[in-house]
C-alpha cells in the first residue's frame, strides 16, 4: 500500500500546485481529506492490510495526511490573501467622495443674538420677562412720561389699532410691567426681550418690525455708575474682552439723565471706518429711570433709584455679523440663514 500513499501524496501536491483559487483548494481538501476523500478511504482500508504492515503504513498515511493538511492550509492562506487583495481593488472606494451628512438645523441669527444677550444678563442675576406686542397707550407712552401730544412721540412713529391700543414701539413698557409685578420689592433686576414696531418705511437700516431687549434695575442704592459698569461688562462679553464703551448725553422722556451708549468700533479698533465713521458704534439708549416712571411703577423715587436700557437686537446682529441690510433678517432666504449654522 505504501506506493498508493505516495501516489496520492504526489497527486495531491500537484493539484495544490495547480490550484488558483481558494475554491479549488477547498475542492482538493474534499477530494483527498473529506469524509469520502481518497486519503481518508485509504486510511479506512487499513484493516485489510496484513497486521505486520499495518503499523508502518498507518504511520506513513498519517504523516501524508498531516503534510497535506499543512500544505493546503498555507496554500489557502496565500490564495485567500490574493483574493482579498483582488476583491479590494475591484471594490475600491473613493473616499474623497463627500460624506453623507445629517441635515443641519439652523437657529436664526436674531435668535442667536437674543440668546447671547439673555445669557449674559441671566449670568448677572437678571430674570427674563415678556410682554404683549399689542399695548395700551398707557403702558407704551403715558406711564413712561410721554403724555398725549408730547413731541417726543415723534421719535417713535407708531402703528395704531385704535385710539388707545397700538403696537408697542419699544420694550420699555416692560419697565412698568416689571415694577408692578415686583410690587414694591427690591431689587428688581429684569430684562425684557421682544418684538417692537415703528412706522418706518423699510430700507437697509429701517424695518417696521424689529426686536429689542429692555433692561431694568431698581434698588435702594443704584447709580449711573452701576449702569456704566454693567454695560461695560456686557460689551466685553458680547464684543470681546477689549471692548470699550462711551456714554453720550441724550434724551428719552423716561430716563433722567439719559445716555446714548457707543462701543468702540471692533472693525477698525476706533480709527474710524465705513461702518462707524468716527470710531464708535451706537448700540443702545439708557439712563436713570425717571422719578415719574418709578412712581408709575409703584416705587418712591426718594427710596429707590434705578437704571434702564434698551438695545436693538438687529443692530447688534448687524454689527456682530457684518450684515449691511436689515431686511435680510426678515426675508428668510436660506442662503442667508445657513451662513449662521
Amino acid at each position, binding site marked *: 500500500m505504501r506506493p498508493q500513499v505516495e501516489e496520492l501524496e504526489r497527486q495531491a501536491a500537484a493539484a495544490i500546485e495547480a490550484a488558483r483559487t481558494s475554491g479549488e483548494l477547498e475542492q482538493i481538501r474534499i477530494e483527498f481529506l473529506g469524509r469520502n476523500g481518497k486519503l481518508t478511504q485509504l486510511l479506512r482500508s487499513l484493516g485489510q492490510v496484513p497486521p505486520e504492515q499495518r503499523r508502518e503504513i498507518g504511520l506513513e498515511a498519517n504523516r501524508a495526511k498531516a503534510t497535506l493538511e499543512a500544505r493546503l492550509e498555507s496554500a489557502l492562506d496565500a490564495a485567500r490573501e490574493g483574493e482579498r487583495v483582488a476583491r479590494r481593488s475591484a471594490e475600491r472606494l473613493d473616499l474623497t467622495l*463627500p460624506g453623507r451628512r445629517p*441635515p443641519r*438645523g*439652523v*437657529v*436664526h441669527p*436674531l*435668535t442667536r443674538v437674543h440668546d447671547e444677550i*439673555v445669557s449674559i444678563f441671566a449670568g*448677572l*442675576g437678571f*430674570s427674563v420677562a*415678556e410682554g*404683549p*406686542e*399689542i399695548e*395700551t397707550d398707557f403702558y407704551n407712552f403715558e406711564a413712561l412720561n410721554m403724555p*398725549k*401730544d408730547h*413731541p*417726543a412721540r415723534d*421719535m417713535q412713529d407708531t*402703528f*395704531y*389699532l385704535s385710539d388707545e*391700543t397700538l*403696537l408697542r414701539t419699544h420694550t420699555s413698557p416692560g419697565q412698568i410691567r416689571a415694577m408692578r409685578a415686583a410690587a414694591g420689592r427690591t*431689587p428688581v*433686576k429684569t430684562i425684557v*426681550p421682544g*418684538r417692537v*414696531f415703528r412706522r418706518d418705511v423699510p430700507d437697509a437700516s429701517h424695518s*417696521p*418690525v424689529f426686536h429689542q431687549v429692555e433692561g431694568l434695575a431698581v*434698588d435702594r*442704592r*443704584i*447709580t*449711573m*455708575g*452701576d449702569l*456704566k*459698569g454693567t454695560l461695560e*461688562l456686557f460689551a466685553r462679553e458680547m464684543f470681546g474682552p477689549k471692548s470699550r464703551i*462711551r*456714554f*453720550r*448725553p*441724550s*434724551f428719552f422722556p423716561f430716563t*433722567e*439723565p*439719559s445716555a446714548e451708549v457707543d462701543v468702540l468700533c471692533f472693525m477698525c479698533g476706533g480709527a474710524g471706518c465705513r461702518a462707524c465713521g468716527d470710531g464708535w458704534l451706537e448700540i443702545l439708549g439708557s439712563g*436713570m429711570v425717571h*422719578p415719574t416712571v418709578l412712581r408709575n411703577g409703584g416705587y418712591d423715587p426718594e427710596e429707590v*433709584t434705578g437704571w434702564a436700557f434698551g438695545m436693538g437686537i438687529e443692530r447688534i446682529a448687524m454689527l456682530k455679523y457684518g450684515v449691511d441690510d436689515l431686511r435680510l433678517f*426678515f426675508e428668510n*432666504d*436660506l*442662503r442667508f440663514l445657513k451662513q449662521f449654522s
Partner: protein
Amino acid sequence: VKIPYGWVREFVDLDLTAEQAAERLINAGLEVASVTSAAPDARGVVIGEVEAIERELGESHGHRLLLCRVSTGRERFAVVSGAPNTRVGLRAAFAPPGAMLPGNRAIGVATIRGAESQGMLCSERELGLGDEHEAGLLAVEPDAPLGADLLAHLGLDDRVLEIEVTPNRPDCLSVLGVARELAALTGRRLRVPAIPRRQGREPARALVRVRVEAPDLCPRYTVRVVSGVRIGPSPAWLAARLRACGLRPISNVVDVTNYVLWELGHPLHAFDGDRVAGATFVIRRAAAGERFTTLDGQTRALDDSMLVIADPERAIGLAGVMGGANSEVGHATTRVFLESAYFAPGSIRRTSRALGLRTDAAYRFERGADIEGLVDAGARAVQLIAELAGGTVARGMVDVYRRRRRPVRVRLRLARVERVLGVVPSRPQARRILAGLGLGVRDRGRDLDVQVPSFRRDLAIEDDLAEEIIRVWGYDKIPSTLLAGATIEVARESDRLRQEAIARRALVGAGLVEAVGSSFSDPVRVAALRAPGDPEPVALLNPLSQDASLLRQHPLDGVLGAVSTNVRRRQPDVRVFEIGRTYERSAGGDTGTAEPRWATIALTGARHERGWDDEGAAVDVYDAKGYAEHVLETFGLTTHTTPGGRLGGLEPDRHASLATEPGDVVAEFGELSAGARESFGIDVPVFVAAIRLDRLPALPLAPRHRPLPRFPSVQRDMAFAIGDPALAVATVQTAIARAAGALLRDIAVFDVFGLPEGARSVAWRLTFQADDRTLTDEEVNAIHARVAEVVSRQFGITLRGS
C-alpha cells in the same frame, strides 16, 4: 436744524473750528449730524461792475443780448449778457475765465453771435444759490467791493452745523440757543446783542387792538406795528444767511421774521395791517367746519379744537401753524402788524398733525416756545424791518398776557446728584456749570437754590439738573461700578421663553432652519388662509401699505412667506420653522386682543439634502406630521390623529389634527391648499404643521427611569389587506393592540402598499415581552392567532400571507 457757525460766533467768542465745536456739542447731548459748507460748489466768482454797454448783439429767447464791459477793479472784461436787469453801474456776480460754477462747469472765453465773451455774469440759479433765473443777474449792493470773492461777501464761506435737536430742547433750535450751549461748555461769555429801541411817538395800543377769547390755547399774544414800510427784496447778506439755513428769501419783511426765528428761536408772523379788519385781532377757536385758506393756497376745513387768529370778520391766520392768504404781506403792504405770541403746545401739535401741516413755527410751538423771550423777538424784528424796509416803529406793543408764568425754582441737593450719578462735582463747579447755562443759582444751606429761565422748559426737577451738571462736566466723569446687590436670586427665564427654546432646539436638532416672519399680512393672504367662522383680523389704523395692513392671524403666515421667498429665488428645497405669535380679537385684557404662540413648520422639495447617490425623495404630509409629533413628544405628549381641523388654507382631505385627548387639539398638519399657495406665489406642494404652544405643558416632565427588561422580547409581523379606504390604519392598530393584550410592548406599522385589487396591505410589527419569564413560541403564536381572528372578524379584513 441748520445753524451757520459764523453766526453763532457773533454771539460768543470761540477759538474752536466748526468741527471742534460740533464735537463739544455732541458730547453735551446735542446731536450734530454733519458739518458742511454753506457755499455751493463754485470757485473764483467775484463781484464785477457793468461799466458800459458796448453794443447789442440781437435777441435770444426773448432777451436782448448785450456786449458789456465788466470791471473787477483791476481788470476789464468783454462779456455778453442776456439778463433783463443788465444795466450800467450794476454790481453783480461775475465768473471770469478760469472760474468754476456748480456741476464742474468751467468758465472760459466763448464766442457768442460773433463777439468774444470773456467769462460770464451769473444768475442765482447759475451759482447754485437758488431757483431764481428770470429776474436776471445776482445783484449785490452798489458799494460792494469790486473784485471781492462773491461767496465770502455773501457770508457763504461759513460752515453750517446740521443739528438734530431732541424734543426736550426747543431752545437749541436757534443760533442764540446753540451759542448759549457753547458758551456754557467753553466757559466763554454769551453776548446777547442789545436791541436798539428806535420808535415813533404813536403807541401801538392806539393802532391795533387784541382780544383773546381762548386764553387756554393762547396764554400770551403781542402785536407790534411798523408803518410806512416798502416791500422789496432783502439785502444779499440776509438772503445768503437764510439760504445757509435752508430757507428761501421772499421779501424783506417776511425774511426778517424768518431771520429772527433762526436767530432767537421764536416764530413770528407779519400781517398786512390794512387787511386786518378794524385793526382788531380776535384770538378764538375755529368754528366747526370753518374753511380757511392758508398761505400755501390750500383751503382747509377746521374744527373747534383749533385756534385761529381772526379779525372781527374772518379768520386771518391758523395760530402757530401758518398765516392766511387773505392777510399776507405783499408788494402793496405799507403797514405791518407783527405777531409774537405763545400758543399751547398740545393744541398746536394736534392742529398741525390733523391738517398735515408741519411748519417751522408749529415745530417750535409744539415743543414749547419761550413765553418771556417772545418780547425780545418781536422788538428785534420790528427794528430790523424798519432798518430794511423803512417805516416807523410804533411805540411799545399790545401785550395780552393774563396769567404770568410762575418762576420755576428747584432746590438741588448735591447729595441727590451723587446718589443718582455715583459722582458729584464740587459745589463751586456745580454752580459754575448751572450759571453758565443761564440758570440762576444761589447757595441755600447745603443745597443750591436754582432758578430756571423761561427758555429751559425741560428743567423741572432735581434730576433734570443732575443731568445738566453731568453733561456739561462730562459723561466720562461717571465712574464704572457694579451693582452691589446683597441679595442673590436665581435668575430665570419665563416659562414661556423656556418652552419656546425647547421647541426650537427640537426642530433645529431635527435639521430645520429657523425663520423669523413679519407680524403684518396682506389682506389677500389673510383671505386665502381664513377659515369660515374665523373672527375679523386685527387691522392697523395707519398701515404703511395695503399689503401690510393687517396683523397676521394665521400661524403659517410667517413660514409660508419664507417658503415663497426661497421657491421664487429658485431654491426648491425648503424645510423651515418659526416660533411666533398670531394676533386676534379677544374679550378681556387691556387691549381686547390675544397673542397666541405657535411653532410652525413648512416643507417643500426634497426630504433630505440631495447627495451624490440620493436624488432626494420629496417631502410629503407625513414629514409635516412627523415634525409635529417630534415636538409634541419632546414635551412628553402622545396624540391621536383626527381628520380635519380649524385652520384655514389646507386641502380639506389632507388636513388633520393631533389631540392629546378627544377635543384637546394641540397641533394641526396637512397640505397647503391651492388657493393659499397662489396667494403666496408658490407653485409647488407645501406641507405644513402648526403647534399651539399655549396648549403644551410649560416644560417637559422630568424623565423617569424604568428597569431594563431582564427577559428577551419576541417579534411577530402581521399584515392585513384592508379594502375599505375609509377604514383608518389607526383604528385597526388600536384594535390589534387591544386584542394582543398585556404582553404587547410595542406596535408599529412597517409596510404599506397597494394590492392589485385596490385594497391596501398594511403590515405591523408586534413586540411581545414579559417581565418575569422568557415567552415561549407557543404563547406568542396563540396571541398572534387570537389577534388575527378578532381583528379579521371585527373589520371584515383578511390576514395576509398566512
